């Protein structure tokens, strides 16, 4: 249940941003969570519902954008098939993760007086 500590880091970060910009509220929060981030997106949303009460994010709409994992060959750039051995069949290079491990605060919408 590390989703709770990630949400708590998210709320701190957003609160900071809101304070620095003189906002009175947060209208929306958009985060990106990759398939290989080790974060359950459903639990993340539940944790957000629980923890936002009493914070500047109490009325914020949360959007969690999923990012599909993509492995590719670092030499030829060829993406690997899902579930395949993580080695390029042509170059024999170990694959690199192009995307899918992000736990990212993408953007927010602040309510500024």
């Amino acid at each position, binding site marked *: *249940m*590390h989703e709770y*500590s*990630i949400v708590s*880091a*998210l709320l*701190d*970060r957003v609160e900071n*941003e809101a304070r620095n*910009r003189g*906002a*009175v*509220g947060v*209208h929306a929060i958009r*985060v990106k969570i990759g398939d*290989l*981030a*080790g*974060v359950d997106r459903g639990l993340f949303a539940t944790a957000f519902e629980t923890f936002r009460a009493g914070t500047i994010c109490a009325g914020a709409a949360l959007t969690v954008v999923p990012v599909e994992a993509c*492995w590719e060959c670092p030499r030829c750039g060829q993406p690997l098939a899902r*579930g*395949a*051995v*993580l*080695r390029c069949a042509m170059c024999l290079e*170990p*694959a*690199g*993760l192009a995307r899918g*491990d*992000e*736990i*990212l*605060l*993408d*953007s*927010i*919408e*602040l*309510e*500024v*007086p």
Partner: protein
Amino acid sequence: MCDSCGCGDPSIVPVEVQERILAGNERTAAHNRDHFHREGVLAVNLMGSPGSGKTSILEATARALKQEIRIGAVSGDLATSHDAERLRAAGIPSESITTGTACHLDAELVHRTLHDFPWRKLQILFIENVGNLVCPAVYDLGQTANVVALSVTEGEDKPLKYPPMFRNADLVLLTKTDLLPHLSVDVAAIHDALARVMPRPRLLPFSAVTGEGVERWAAWLRERRIALFLQEPARDADLMPQLASSRA
């Protein structure tokens, strides 16, 4: 102020942040890493399920390396300090990190614990994480290497079920291999599963009971220590599974 209609409502201002949510943990981890590098301490984050044999690995490591390398450990434990007590009994300076309800260690917990622990006198610091194949994978602690203990009793598909844990592992110790004669576990299937989640799969069969793999594990740690000083990745090609024999 909303100036389109004069209603007095606040205006909505979009802000592109594009920042990792765990950036705070990553900063503390970088700080820890900097400390370890400056003092020449190899920090190993040892992870694995509850009961996968993490503490037994460290006891066997102490038996093998105690006279040669100064090792110590901090152990994450939800409620007890049993692991740290076992390690002290094995002659390893050890401190427990009681996490309460937290299912993982983070960089700040490690940092705080090290303030009262003589880690600078060590050559290898093991950070024994909380027994869990999910949460510890998400938190950088400032370690130089990630090692995952996977016991033969856990089933062949664990790597496929918990890819984030194995993706960032530098080495997987396949523990309790002394039990293999009593089980119908196919070690080749574990190799195959690992090759699908770990780009540079390295699996070392290990038994704290028979001593299988202990010498190769010790050699791996020695290579890692040398690489720490040379600042280059260790070459442990002999631990590569036979990819040719794994099912494509």
